[in-house]
């Protein structure tokens, strides 16, 4: 099982000090967080993508390329890459270059983005969010799996005889996760391709997470990729820890009360009860996280959000150290012990390459996507 950190890259005023970091400081602190993720023994660092203030992560592959040069082990990922408003050709190229530079330590998570104005800023319409995600990924998938592509669709200028360069490292495209909070079409999409499904697991009660994961697993099996409980599932989570749980509550409360996403709403205690947010001791985080398995089944990736709402960098780095020293080693052991036989690990470049070596280059499966007539030139 993989454990990691995902960052939304917000620049938020620290409610305790009134201080707001500069964009430059925030970008540098994201790099520091990524490096600490590796140093603490975690497996994945994922960056969000945003195109409006107060966020700084508009160009994730640039940042991840820089992190790749300074790390040796962690997987570099995204949470999420906007498949709706970014040109799939550019996504194919950017992540292929990153994959070569990072020696395969790259995957990505696709999402639609819910900031209305970003769509028209990039020439799109938010009402087409789902069709954009479906068509753009159909193209991205072909660009990575086929050397020469002829293509025509609703949203992008047609391609004839196009080759996306560089070709994926070793002919193995980066593994793709599809992230969605409540859109069944996206769970269906992930299942169809046999890709991973990720639920951010932050804003919603567990019943919503459960419903999406259950649909994805059922349809993964339907499309012939394997049994439902072998589907590739990732979850987010949100934690703040101190050795003594009352200290954690006291220290985190002002950040919770002023956070852009839930400030002014429910109390910290109510929110903890209703969502997977855990503020407390490392043991409480362990117990809560192990509990996720009870409602989604065995899963492959757990990412934690720790660097938002204006928390100072030193505090964030302490959180990553505590995850690495006190939480993740226990979670690895306990999840491994509980895992049902046959459940696969999350795909990595090395595992996909080994699997490809055992089979023809494009393993045939009922879910192997074929281009529908409507979008074929």
């Amino acid at each position, binding site marked *: 099982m993989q454990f990691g950190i995902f960052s939304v890259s917000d620049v938020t005023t620290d409610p305790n000090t009134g201080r707001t970091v500069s964009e430059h400081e925030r970008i540098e602190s994201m790099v520091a967080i990524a490096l600490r993720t590796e140093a603490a023994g975690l497996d994945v660092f994922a960056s969000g993508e945003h195109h409006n203030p107060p966020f700084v992560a508009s160009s994730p592959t640039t940042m991840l390329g820089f992190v790749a040069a300074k790390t040796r082990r962690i997987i570099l990922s995204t949470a999420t890459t906007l498949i709706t408003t970014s040109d799939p050709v550019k996504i194919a190229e950017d992540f292929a270059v990153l994959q070569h530079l990072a020696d395969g330590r790259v995957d990505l998570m696709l999402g639609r983005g819910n900031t209305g104005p970003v769509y028209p800023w990039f020439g799109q319409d938010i009402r087409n969010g789902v069709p954009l995600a479906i068509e753009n990924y159909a193209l991205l998938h072909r660009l990575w799996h086929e050397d020469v592509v002829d293509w025509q669709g609703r949203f992008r200028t047609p391609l004839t005889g196009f080759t996306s360069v560089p070709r994926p490292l070793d002919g193995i495209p980066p593994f793709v996760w599809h992230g969605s909070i409540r859109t*069944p079409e996206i*769970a*269906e999409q992930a299942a169809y391709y046999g890709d991973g499904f990720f639920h951010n697991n932050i804003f*919603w*009660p567990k019943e919503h997470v459960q*419903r999406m994961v259950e*649909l994805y697993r059922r349809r993964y099996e339907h499309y012939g990729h394997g049994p439902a409980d072998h589907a590739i599932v990732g979850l987010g989570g949100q934690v703040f820890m101190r050795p003594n749980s009352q200290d954690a509550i006291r220290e985190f409360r002002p950040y919770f009360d002023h956070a852009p996403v839930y400030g002014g709403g429910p109390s910290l205690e109510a929110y903890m009860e*209703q969502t997977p947010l855990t503020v407390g001791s490392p043991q409480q985080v362990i117990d809560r996280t192990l509990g996720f398995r009870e409602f989604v089944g065995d899963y492959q990736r757990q990412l934690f959000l720790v660097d938002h709402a204006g928390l100072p960098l030193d505090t964030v780095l302490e959180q990553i150290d505590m995850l690495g020293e006190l939480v993740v080693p226990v979670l690895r052991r306990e999840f491994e012990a509980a895992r049902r036989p046959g459940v696969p690990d999350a795909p990595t470049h090395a595992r996909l390459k080994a699997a490809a070596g055992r089979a023809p280059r494009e393993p045939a499966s009922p879910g192997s996507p074929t281009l529908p007539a*409507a979008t074929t030139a």
Partner: protein
Amino acid sequence: MADRTIVVVSAGIGTPSSTRLLADRLGSAVELRLRSVGLAPATTTLELRDLAHELTDNLLTGFPVPALRGAIDAVVAADGLIAVSPIFSASYNGLFKMFFDVLDRDGLAEKPVLIAATGGSPRHSLALEHAFRPLFAYLDAAVVPTAVYAATEDWGGADDPIVGALVDRIERAAAEMARAVAAEERSVPLDPFADPTPFEDLLTGSPSTSSASRETR
């Protein structure tokens, strides 16, 4: 076992509230009429005041806590809705609007709805026609023709020479509502999690279950 479910939503603020009084009268009038045609209705009343904090939290966090989820689910599943609010500043009050802001967008589609309001003066009665009715028209609800307005003086029993006494207006609206609720067929949204649109259809641009399809029951 009930064969029709009616949910009464009251956005009254005071306790006791004249809005609740009107809501209860409408609820029992509709129930009586359904019984008189051999149906077995079950009526549930929701006091939005009890959900005021949960409604605010839903607006801010984007999801309802279990108590509010239960209220929303009850309205969405009901065969008919009676929606009653006091008039504040020429319209329904904020509490009333918050509830319908967080309700599922398709939750009222084709559902029979009886609208009613209370106010201190009869001069605000048209708020039902130019505020309540357009709200429910937007939500694709089937609002019955008669809307019931009760001014303070109506509780004294004074007859209006044009529209009759309050009890007459309640009976007229209840009769329309009971007929709509008793009518057999109403469409319900397909559950996109139980019946997802196959991906081949999504790829070719067919409408998806969660955005368009309904089935008749």
